[in-house]
């Protein structure tokens, strides 16, 4: 029967041979495939019917990621992005057209994918990742990040690490992170609490160039110095509290004019509109091809993790494409003193009648903690801080109070102290 041929796996959008290519991978293991791989229908069913994946960012990497996932057989994809489409996105963000300029990226990208790849559901959210809570992130099997912001990456990384509950295997969400700059890029797999996390590698990041403020003020030499003078010193002086909007052409125009005048005064050449924009927006060069490479690496890892069809990246892939193709795959080490995934964690049982002071004494006495002069907080309150004096005084009355009045059963206490590499987390239960 003709209709029977079209219906595969009960999904009316799947036509026979739709997954001819991918199925070669899913129908049998390769030499490096883990024995737990369940080749055949079971893995296909999980991928195409059960697996739910979140894509953070619908920009340069995000557009590519969405297309690759959809073609690979992921059918329940969510995407978050807070940005709208700008004309400068069109040289690489291939799901957008000139008519889409000004529209939310997440929504346009989701619609495009659903039109192009039948049977794939893409659920967009036009907003910030911080708008969503743990319950939201808990619904996904995997998270892929294609972001250009360090802050947003730190946030999602910390959120996923914090979500890991040792009693609940499903709470561990693999995080795959990609990033590019010009002909260079990197992709990495983070298994929260198991492998090194984003925060562990924070010191590997290049910091944006900053010029000494006295150079900007008094001894400018480069056109960049004149531009920073206009944006860092002159703008707040002239416009007071009005915030500089680097997307507003009028604001850029003012900065350009001001920087040019200063450059002329000091006989410095090279202030252009494009450089002004580049400096104040900290523009990073971006091209379609590098994004394609890095996004494909990320999706490949997502596919391998979701299906167990092949070994996955352990855990960092770095690519430099300026001089031939140079890449480096290595295991980035977890940092013991990482503020997000490092530090110690302890379950402690506290007598309901104990004061906070008694708890602190107990911590100091414990051989396995070895802490001196600890400061204690919960997510919402300061329990006792050793300094500065104002805060010590304010929190001192808590020492007399019962721990059970200050902290609820099952709550977490963050302990910091000079003697601890970073911090210690206590989970409190009452006896």
């Amino acid at each position, binding site marked *: 029967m003709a209709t029977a041929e079209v219906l595969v796996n009960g999904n009316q959008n799947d*036509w026979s041979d739709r997954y*001819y290519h*991918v199925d070669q991978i899913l129908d049998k293991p390769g030499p*490096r495939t883990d024995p737990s791989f369940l080749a055949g229908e079971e893995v296909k069913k999980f991928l195409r019917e059960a697996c739910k994946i979140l894509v953070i960012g619908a920009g340069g990497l995000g557009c590519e990621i969405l297309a690759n996932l959809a073609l690979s057989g992921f059918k329940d994809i969510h995407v978050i992005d807070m940005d709208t489409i700008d004309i400068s996105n069109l040289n690489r963000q291939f799901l957008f057209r000139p008519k889409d300029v000004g529209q939310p990226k997440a929504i346009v990208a989701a619609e495009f994918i659903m039109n192009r790849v039948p049977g794939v559901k893409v659920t967009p959210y036009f907003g910030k990742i911080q708008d969503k809570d743990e319950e939201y992130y808990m619904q996904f099997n995997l998270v892929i990040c294609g972001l250009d912001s360090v802050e947003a990456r730190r946030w999602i990384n910390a959120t996923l690490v914090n979500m890991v509950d040792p009693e609940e295997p499903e709470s561990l969400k693999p995080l795959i992170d990609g990033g590019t700059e010009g002909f260079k890029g990197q992709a990495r797999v983070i298994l929260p609490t198991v492998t090194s996390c984003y925060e562990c590698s924070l010191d590997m990041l290049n910091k944006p160039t900053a010029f000494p403020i006295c150079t900007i003020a008094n001894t400018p030499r480069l056109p960049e110095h004149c531009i920073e003078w206009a944006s860092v010193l002159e703008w707040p002086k002239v416009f007071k509290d009005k915030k500089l909007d680097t997307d507003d052409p009028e604001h850029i125009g003012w900065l350009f004019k001001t920087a040019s005048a200063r450059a002329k005064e000091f006989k410095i050449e090279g202030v*252009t*509109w494009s450089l002004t924009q580049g400096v104040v927006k900290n523009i990073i060069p971006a091209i379609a091809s*590098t994004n394609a490479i890095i996004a494909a690496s990320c999706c490949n890892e997502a596919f391998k993790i979701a299906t167990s069809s092949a070994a996955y990246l352990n855990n960092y892939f770095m690519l430099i494409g300026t001089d*031939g193709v140079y890449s480096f795959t290595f295991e980035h080490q977890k940092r013991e003193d990482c503020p997000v995934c490092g530090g110690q964690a302890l379950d402690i049982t506290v007598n309901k009648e104990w004061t906070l002071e008694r708890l602190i004494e107990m911590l100091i006495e414990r051989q396995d903690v070895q802490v001196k002069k600890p400061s204690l907080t919960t997510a919402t309150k300061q329990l006792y801080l050793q300094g500065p004096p104002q805060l010590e005084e304010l929190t001192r009355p808590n020492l007399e109070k019962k721990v059970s009045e200050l902290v609820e059963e099952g709550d977490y206490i963050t302990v910091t102290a000079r003697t601890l590499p970073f911090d210690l987390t206590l989970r409190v239960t009452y006896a």
Partner: protein
Amino acid sequence: MSAAVSESQDIEQATAAIHSRPPDNKTRRYDRQLRLWAASGQNALESSRILVLSSSATATAVLKNLVLPGIGHFTILDSAITSPADAGNNFFLAGPSSIGKPRAQEAVPLLRELNDSVEGEAVVKDVKELLRTDDGKAFVSAFSLVIAHNLQKDTTDDLSKLLWSDLNYPPLLVVRSAGFLAEFFIQFHEQCVAQPHTDENVPSLRIIRPFSALTQWASSLDFDSLDPTEHGHIPFVIILVKAVEQWKASHDGKLPATMPERRAFKEQIAEMRKKIDEENFDEAEAQAWRIWSDPPVPGAVQSLFGLAPLTPGLTADAPNAGFHALLRTLEAFVSAPDGPGSLPLSGALPDMRTDTESYVKLQTVYKEFAAVEKVRSRLVIAPAISDEEVDTFVKNAHHIRVLRGHRWGEWDADKEALASSLSIFPRETATHLGLAALSNLLSKAPDGSAVTVDALRAEVHKLVGDNVELPEDLESAIGELARAPTADVPNTAAFLGGMVAQEAIKMITKQYVPVNGYCVIDMVDMWTGTVGGQ
């Protein structure tokens, strides 16, 4: 006032006007890439015509990454009819509605809509047939670059022979993939890279071969008589020129050479300080390497001087004629008895701790002398080369590259080279051999039915010889290939799409350095490597 002068002023004014306005829509659209390859790279892309053989998922992924940055024109040559499998793995087909229609014709409009300024066409013909006719050969040879994905072995052989047969024929990018494994190779005779973007350091500042303006400045400045602020703002270049002068005076005119001498030289700089925290003196110490590692001509550039051109006589219409003319000029400049004996000054100056006035003055000194040397070198240059080209060449003279490529298939015929590579780069070479073996088997049965681990191993033995011991890595590679011999999976296609487009951009813009050899990719353990480039 002569006409030429007023004309150049007009250009200057016009350029100034361009730079002082918000950019036009085209510049805005390409802003993020213009910051990498500038207008010169963009112009090269826009005048390129690219032929892609096949409209597989990989082929369209490559094209996507070429259409977006704005190549001039593309042609897809493919006789295939869209299969249900194609409709499932190719983003540039319209899903099931494309099934049964010519694949190239279905893909072209979906690629063209990515960028209005790019032209594209589908030619629904068989490559093999086409290459049998003279018209077909002429058609294929007229592009700027030809890219082929998973083309049959014998067709690839024919095509590569054709394109190798004339220095003016386009480079050929051969791409092969199956499942998680892939490789690509660029067949080209010669690639001259005037802007490699590989060394971000400012080239020689001529501190050990100072020109008169520099020595005059250094010797006329009495460091001791300066007030602390002025002393803390002497440009490091001047500090170093002075320090070298002093060193030479007490060391028989020789430069510091040995490690202890270098240390002593740095100590000498330290003694010139008035206060311990003078950052300009910190810079001078940090830049002291410019005293001992500043060859008049870097070794790699020197070796280019001896490179025989591929076309004897080097007529103006020979490939890379302009580059070679500039290279000869450079050589003449270096060996000129009245010249500096080194590469011409680039004119660039790094930022340094000093006051505005000194910096601007130093910048002027460098620019003016660079202009003098340019005029001197210009005398030898063919007038057909634009001033802009000369400037770019001089700016990059310290790291220009000339790559000499190889014919596709040459390496695979060299048993000794393969065996040696197999012992030095086992996993990369094994993966390449696996893909070559797969290609041989698929030419017998395109559906993959002849592909088994044993058959692949036997093919590999045919390539390297029966007595060569095969590494463990070969089993990993051929096992994956036997698992998915005809699979063009979306992630591998997208990865290759990026890689191959990136190399195509390098070839066309002559900026950045392309791969020379087989770039091999394994997406199981996620690594890449290059073999067979010697």
